């Protein structure tokens, strides 16, 4: 859940070239939007199985695992949280890492609040469902009505399927025994790589990724678990700040 990619293109890239009001609703039936939203929901939801399994093997119980998927509901942060806990890191380090990875959802919210345009309790619901996928599908659609439809349908279908899959994965994960025997530690690394992949198209992102790998690897033997990842984020802030324009 957090793969910022739709139809193989990074979300930012897609958002940049969909600009423009587009023709009226007559030329834009809802079918393609519905199909796109549901297919993203199914693909992303299925991936919740691996979150559930990895979470219980990282030491969380079934209810804690479910609480993460229901309340946090943002895959990158959820995987980061259990990754830090599983590596022996503190709850504070896990919370900080998950929170930093969730900052982008605030930026998505800024954008989607204009598109969704709801108030009160429905605005809370919209915020809850604001993730990479719902933002990407929503902002990709040609008309305001379809943008709202794409956002809500993607968010709701991912939410339902992600939580069902998390529960299934947590039950299966409990039965697996040693996670290493099944390669689940490697699966977690691959999940992070898959989340990272669509973001590596520009040169500065690749440079920051390389620096982050060096910083995190170098600090692992000397810093408490969780700190190497946060230090890598700090390095990104420094690089991003200094490369202004």
């Amino acid at each position, binding site marked *: 859940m957090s793969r910022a990619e739709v139809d193989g293109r990074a979300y*930012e890239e897609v958002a940049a070239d969909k600009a423009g009001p587009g023709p009226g609703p007559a030329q834009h039936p809802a079918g393609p939007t519905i199909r796109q939203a549901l297919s993203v929901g199914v*693909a*992303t939801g299925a*991936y919740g199985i*691996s979150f559930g399994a990895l979470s219980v093997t990282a030491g*969380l119980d079934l209810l*804690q695992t479910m*609480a*993460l998927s229901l309340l946090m509901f943002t895959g990158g942060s959820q995987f*980061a*949280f259990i*990754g830090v806990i599983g590596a022996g890191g*503190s*709850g*504070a380090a*896990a*919370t900080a*890492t998950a*929170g*930093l*990875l*969730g*900052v*982008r*959802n*605030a930026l998505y*919210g*800024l954008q989607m609040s204009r598109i969704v345009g709801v108030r009160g309790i429905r*605005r*809370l619901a*919209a*915020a809850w469902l604001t993730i990479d996928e719902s933002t990407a599908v929503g902002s990709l659609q040609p008309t305001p009505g379809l943008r709202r439809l794409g956002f809500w349908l993607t968010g709701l279908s991912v939410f339902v399927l992600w939580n069902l899959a998390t529960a299934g994965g947590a039950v299966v994960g409990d039965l697996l025994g040693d996670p*290493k025997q099944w*390669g*689940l*530690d*490697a699966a977690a*690394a*691959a*999940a*992070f*790589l*898959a989340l*990272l992949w669509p*973001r590596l198209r520009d040169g500065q*992102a690749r440079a*920051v990724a390389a620096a*982050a*790998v060096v910083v*995190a690897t170098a600090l*692992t*033997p000397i810093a408490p*678990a969780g700190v*190497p*990842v946060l230090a*890598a*984020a700090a390095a*990104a*802030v420094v690089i*991003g700040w200094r490369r202004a324009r």
Partner: protein
Amino acid sequence: MTGWVAVLAAAGVCLALKVAGYLVPGRLVEGERARRIAGLVTVALLAALVAVQTLGAGQRLAVDARVVALGAAAVALALRAPFIVVVVLAAAVAAGLRALGW
């Protein structure tokens, strides 16, 4: 801070961030620099998590079946394999190598 406290705190932080995006006036955080830094922080966190998850063994570094599995995942990603295929492939490669005694 352990168990439920950490789970609820982290979930609360992430949910609050989502809500903040809908409440904060856009002009406060919409600068080009803020946007770019937020994107780069995401990239750095994910790259660091890949490194730690692939090479970390508690507080030590270890090169083992995970490195080969990550290589397989990268090849699958380059070939545009779906997310779930990438993850399952990496698990299968690592599990297979370990079954062979590596």
